């Protein structure tokens, strides 16, 4: 992965319509974005479709990217996740059923990063999440990594969906207060 600064530079070039820069941006970010959407969609054909839409959107809206608001990779991941979740919500009947086949190798535990590789923001966020109850922390992480709806989380956690909603919102409020921003 290129540094955030290099990605910002590439993004600026992409905003001007530089195809070579776009190809470099793709090469630097494709595996991260594919990992994100494949985890949510669990089907290569759907993940491939979302990758196309995501990069088309990145190509078309690179000019709207504001480095003061987000890092390039965070911005791109947000686009990819939103596309993937929008798609999976229309196909829930498929995705719940096919939960545990080919991609079981993608463990439920997140990719362990050496602490020195973590950004400061990530370290702060994880410190705040560590203060949540074990179960609520798992709930938030499952939601983020799998893109699961409240209903899916309710099934997984064997808890009523209203309780899941309350837990989620309280956990998010706690995170917000802990981060203080």
């Amino acid at each position, binding site marked *: 992965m290129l540094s955030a600064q290099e990605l910002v530079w590439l993004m600026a070039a992409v905003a001007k*319509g530089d195809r070579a820069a776009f*190809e470099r941006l*793709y090469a630097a970010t*494709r*595996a*991260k*974005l*594919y*990992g*994100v959407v*494949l*985890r*949510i969609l669990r089907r*290569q054909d759907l*993940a*491939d479709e979302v*990758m*196309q839409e995501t*990069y*088309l*959107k990145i*190509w*078309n809206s690179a000019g709207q990217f504001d480095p003061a*608001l*987000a*890092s390039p*990779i*965070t*911005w791109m*991941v*947000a686009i990819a*996740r939103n*596309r993937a979740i*929008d798609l999976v*919500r229309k196909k829930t009947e498929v995705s719940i059923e096919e939960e545990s086949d080919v991609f079981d190798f993608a463990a439920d535990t*997140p*990719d*362990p*990063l050496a602490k020195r*590789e973590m*950004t400061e923001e*990530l370290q702060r*966020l994880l410190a705040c999440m560590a203060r949540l109850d074990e179960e609520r922390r798992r709930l*938030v*992480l499952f*939601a*983020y*990594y799998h893109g*699961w*709806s*409240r*209903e899916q989380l309710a099934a997984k956690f064997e808890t009523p969906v209203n309780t899941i909603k*309350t837990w*989620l*919102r309280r956990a*998010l*409020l706690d*995170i*917000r207060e802990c981060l203080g*921003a």
Partner: protein
Amino acid sequence: MTDETETPDGLAAEYVLGTLGADERAQAEALIGNDPAFARLVRRWERRLGELHAMMHSVEPPPDTWARIQARIDGAAPRAATLVQPDQAVVAAPESNVVALSARLQRWRQVAAGLGALAAVLVALVAIQALNPAALPGLLRPKPIEIVKTETPVNPGRFVAVLQQNAAAPAFILTVDVATRTASVRRVSAEQPAGKSYELWLVSDRFPAPRSLGLVGASEFARPALASYDPATVSSATYAVSLEPEGGSPTGAPTGPILFTGKLVESVPPSP
């Protein structure tokens, strides 16, 4: 029952986390496109949670994905040309439907970007003129509203409107499904004054007086039926929310101030 977490910020947080169902996602996306304050809440949550992706495994996509992305870009016509003269993007292309749609989207984006505020004001004027004051005895100086409707990609023929006077004012999200003739309205950030209820009305020149569509639930959806109205009426009607005594208007006509009015206007989903 009031729930301290039932706030726009809670909705923004869950949108970013990804736990909303299709309907609530469509509503959140409508808000993002039309309510700058809500869009800011979403951006803040993206900053707070966005770094979590760093803990996810990378997976190489299939090698032909890049070729498909390039083909999509080439098929979608050069951006500059599309932006300046959207109509030219429709010229002969293998996937002319896709291109035409993309051109239409670009045109709408132009409108949205350049004329958003003006369009909202015009629509508001149209909406207010569409009201027949004589038919509304309780009409007390309706304020200009910001009404925006989004045809969601989830279900063509379903419209989502944000009823809001300005970013600081209480907001309602109105969902109308023309095909099934159902409407729901949800309070997002409006406080319900004690002893009062919000009531949703359909106003159409086909009827001498506004028709009540039911009360607006606290945080739950009300499901007032539109079954007795034909689709043309549903899509051409003006919708209004009034503040009524608890339990709704005692007379069957709006008695309190009209807080919001709006019409369904064709638009496109905001870019996420």
